[in-house]
């Protein structure tokens, strides 16, 4: 579904991504783990058009994403849950979700999506009339994810969903990610919490300073000695 072929990304003179190749197949949950500054977020931003790769190409179902502006990529079925949640703080939960379906004009389709999101996140339904900014961190993460699901995307990019959440909420969020995956959504997950990320993923890539140092099935990686030492604290 998503193919990233040997991309290079620069921030000015800094060579942040040095030739990375990643594939995500239909219905898969692929995790991208790595330390701070390894370039995980940069890759997601490049995929969703907020940054541009100087070399290499990114294909979604065979269509090149490099020339597509950020605000129209969502039309191709790719939704991005940005890092740090970014909910619309002075709009209600329902308005936030409706903003997610901004590109859809069909009212029936929107109300169906709303039902589906409320099904995944019953908590959001309870708080439909509350302002986005008054939600707790975990609820905001649910809202940001729900908003991305409103367009019924083919693939979901999630950036650090566990950031700034208490351990209980981290567990809850990962349960939800697992649920979404089981309901057939393709997910590319970027996560610092390698233990959790490897537990839910089918396959995973380990990123180190702009390069992929290891990849394979999530199970294999979780048992690999080098990964355990570097990321799992064992």
């Amino acid at each position, binding site marked *: 579904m998503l193919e990233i072929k040997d991309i290079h990304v620069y921030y000015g003179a800094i060579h942040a991504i040095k030739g990375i190749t990643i594939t995500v197949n239909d219905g898969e949950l692929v995790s991208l783990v790595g330390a701070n500054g390894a370039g995980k977020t940069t890759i997601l931003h490049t995929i*969703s058009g*907020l940054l541009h790769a100087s070399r290499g190409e990114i294909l979604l179902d065979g269509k090149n994403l490099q020339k597509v502006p*950020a*605000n*129209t990529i*969502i*039309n191709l079925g790719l*939704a*991005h849950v*940005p890092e740090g949640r*970014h*909910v*619309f*703080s*002075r*709009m209600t939960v329902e*308005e936030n979700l*409706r*903003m*997610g379906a*901004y*590109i859809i004009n069909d009212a029936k389709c929107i109300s169906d999506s709303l039902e589906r999101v409320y099904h995944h996140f019953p908590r959001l339904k309870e708080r439909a009339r509350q302002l*986005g900014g008054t939600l707790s961190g975990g609820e905001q993460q649910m809202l*940001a994810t729900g*908003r*991305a699901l409103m*367009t019924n995307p083919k693939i979901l990019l999630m950036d650090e969903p566990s950031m700034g959440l208490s351990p209980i909420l981290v567990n809850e969020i990962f349960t939800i990610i697992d649920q979404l995956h089981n309901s057939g959504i393709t997910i590319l997950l970027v996560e610092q919490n390698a233990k959790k990320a490897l537990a839910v993923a089918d396959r995973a890539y380990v990123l180190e300073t702009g390069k992929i140092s290891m990849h394979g099935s999530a199970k294999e990686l979780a048992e690999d000695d080098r990964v355990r030492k570097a990321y799992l604290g064992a």
Partner: protein
Amino acid sequence: MIKNRTAQGYLLNTVVIAVLLIGFAFFKGALGGGGEFKLIIVPSIWQCCYLIILAASLNLSLGFLGQLSLGHCGFMAVGAYAAALLSLAAERAGVFEDKSGTAFLLVLAGCIIAAGILAAIVGLLVGIPALRLKGDYLAIITLGFGMIIVNIINNLPFAGQEGLALGSASASLYKNGLGFGTALKVTYIWVAIAVTLVCLVMMFMFVRSKYGRAIRAIRDDEIAASASGINTSYYKTFTFAYSAFFAGVAGALYACANATLSTSSFAFANGGILNSTFVVVMVVLGGMGSLTGSIVAAVIMFLVNYQIKNGVWVQHLPAWLQNIFSFPMLVYAVILIIVIMFRPKGIFGSYELSLRNFFSDIKLQRQNRLAQKLESKEALRNG
């Protein structure tokens, strides 16, 4: 009766406005349409009308889009001069003789619309490059733009520094253009009220539409808005031009209400009621993101301005206080500080006054306040 709550709201608002207008007509009849009514009340209504449009239009870009523009009066100046010059040209071409009849009304309507459109075009030209910047930088650019506009108008051969009164356009706005004297202001008061109502309806519709939701999303979080598929720069520029349109219309009303037109009334640092900072104060006072708040704030600020300049009670105050009042900007600043101290979000915050929901909203607020009190008590008890 009517089930649809939106329709209920529209009906209620229409009825209330109609009642107010009829009441106003009786009031006018009772006062005989002369004396104080003619000299004070009617000009005040004119001034309130264009201030309301101006404040509400700035609220679109400041309150709903979240972009601080300090050059809003520049757009108003564009509108005022466009309307004035157009009316003078029409008079010279012999379209209308005296200020009555259908021909004059058509010219008047044309002037108001043309003023809005020209201001919107200028807004677009300024907005396309300026809105790439954010926050302080945008404020600086728009501040500079306000000054540039005044300078350009000053140097136009047919407008001129002396304004349109003394004859750089070789004609007086009052005599030949659309400047209304006191008697005509009474006759054409319905024009001001109708234009204000239409503008407000257009702004309310905009804010409640999909466009309005999109610009509020941009205000809250630009990245997330872009990720939801909103073309942020398109919406920002569009809103900027849309708000400039209404500033231009307000300018046209200003040109109608004044016998003279000079750029110094729109300049950034003048002490009068019309400068861009003053409009920002009105929007902040009323509440950013509340159109009804802007309406209330515009009227309040007008009354304050009027009272400290003309109020009878001012003469009974001690001399030092009267001296302060001769610098109105000082008084506005104090008012702004007081409002920010006690109601940091402005009088209305982002709440829209609605006749339909008025009582239920008050009830809700009281409940919320009670709940908050209980919560804080509980927190105290739990230490």
